[in-house]
């Protein structure tokens, strides 16, 4: 689980980007961070990932064992999905996906097995595995990026507006695939987005952020049970909740 208290960060002498962030995320919970652009939600995700260090407050992470660490990197159990596919252009899909295992010194056999499982999870054919990223569509590249994040079977999955650059149809499809994977193989997921419907559809809780300085202003529970089907999106209650979250988001900006 992830626990943050009075968390803040500032760069140099500038105004703080994040201030007094309190946060608690349970093991295997799916939580969305929703906020306007520039509110610091990506910065918060990078703090949790261990890419940045807080200048104020405290961040603690642990696995089921209750072994608390100050830094996510120390757990070595996180998968991170960037806004862009962030693939190495000189490597094939297969070699991109196995990179995290290769860097950790896993054996060839382990790598092959993990890549096979990951490809299957995101529905890529073995033929696609030998292609280079430039031969793939934007949606396929994002799938490869997701497969790479999943290859280590992470306990913590961090996603930084992963499908924001895709068209709406594709984004919805990938959200459904992501949710399907998470339902099969639960892990703690923190999903950054500025899309209200996406946040409500995917997560158990939505944390709404305000800006200048960025902080969490409201937490909204999403009561719908899992497994969730795409049909949920036409449900009246779903629409009402999306409306409520959207109102809160607007108020957070005002």
């Amino acid at each position, binding site marked *: 689980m992830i626990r943050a208290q009075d968390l803040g960060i500032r760069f140099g002498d500038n105004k703080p980007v994040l201030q007094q962030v309190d946060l608690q995320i349970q093991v295997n919970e799916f939580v969305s961070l929703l906020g306007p652009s520039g509110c610091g939600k990506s910065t918060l995700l990078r703090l949790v*990932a261990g*890419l940045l260090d807080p200048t104020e407050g405290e961040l603690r992470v642990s696995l089921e064992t209750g072994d608390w660490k100050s830094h996510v*990197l120390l757990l*070595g159990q996180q998968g991170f999905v960037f806004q*862009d596919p962030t693939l*190495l*252009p*000189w490597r094939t899909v297969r070699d991109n996906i196995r990179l995290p295992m290769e*860097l950790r010194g896993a054996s060839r056999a382990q790598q092959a097995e993990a890549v096979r499982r990951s490809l299957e999870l995101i529905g890529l054919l073995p033929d696609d595995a030998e292609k280079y990223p*430039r031969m793939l569509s934007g949606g396929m590249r994002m799938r490869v990026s997701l497969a790479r994040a999943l290859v280590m079977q992470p306990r913590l999955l961090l996603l930084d507006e992963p499908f924001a650059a895709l068209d709406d149809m594709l984004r919805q499809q990938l959200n459904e695939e992501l949710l399907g994977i998470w339902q099969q193989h639960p892990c703690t997921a923190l999903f950054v987005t500025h899309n209200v419907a996406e946040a409500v559809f995917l997560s158990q809780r939505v944390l709404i952020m305000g800006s200048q300085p960025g902080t969490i202003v409201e937490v909204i529970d999403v009561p719908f049970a899992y497994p969730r089907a795409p049909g949920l999106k036409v449900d009246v209650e779903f629409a009402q909740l999306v409306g409520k979250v959207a109102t809160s988001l607007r108020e957070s900006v005002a």
Partner: protein
Amino acid sequence: MKKWYQQVGSVILPPVILFGIVLVLWHVLVEVNEVESYLVPLPGDVWNAAQGNFSQLGQATWNTALAAVSGFGLSLLIGTITAFVFSQSVLIRRSFYPYAIFLQTVPIVAIAPLVINWFGTGLQSVIVVTVVISLFPIITSVTVGLTSVDKGLRELFVLNQASRWQTLLKLRMPHAVPYLVTGARTSSGLAVVGAIVGEFFAGYGSDHYGLGYLILQTSAQLRTDMLFATILASALLGVIMFVVVTWIGFKVLARWTYALEQS
């Protein structure tokens, strides 16, 4: 898909036609204006001079090519190693970069006598001059290649706890390959210039000489037709080196340099 001969035609044909037009214009202008042959010879005279002295010209071109290729190879090696050192820290880069620029700005004519003092006349001095002239583009382009890796990719390696060595080997080095190729293309042309300038100052002697020496000699003897042939041989050598480097860059290293092909 275009057939291969159509592709060759569209790439080779335009410059060949232009070459033909220039030859005709050259011939006509020289004849009409009655230009003295020691100033501008006729294209046919240049051709005859090249044919008549074919073995001499070939031998000189070979000697110069040897110096140019050796110097170019050394530049690749020294430049890449220097760039690796530069890429290790901003402080190193800031401290040494002004002196690397020195290589670029110092008039080679000014330091060539010094090179001969240190290394004597002969091939080794010609190679040193070649390296001095062709080194800079390699250092700058490879340094940029090693240090300009996209932030997201660097974060990916941090998140996966890659060591400094792994990051260099699996991220920075492959990322630098297209930059190396770009630098090498510039450098290959400069290496020929370097070898010829080097030979101006430190020839190998009258029984074993390169294009630089031949240029000085034919110019002094007012054998302008042969001088023209020598100049053309120098240009041809430069073009061949450029083409070979470009071919290796795009075909052999295609995995890393495919993006360059669009430019």
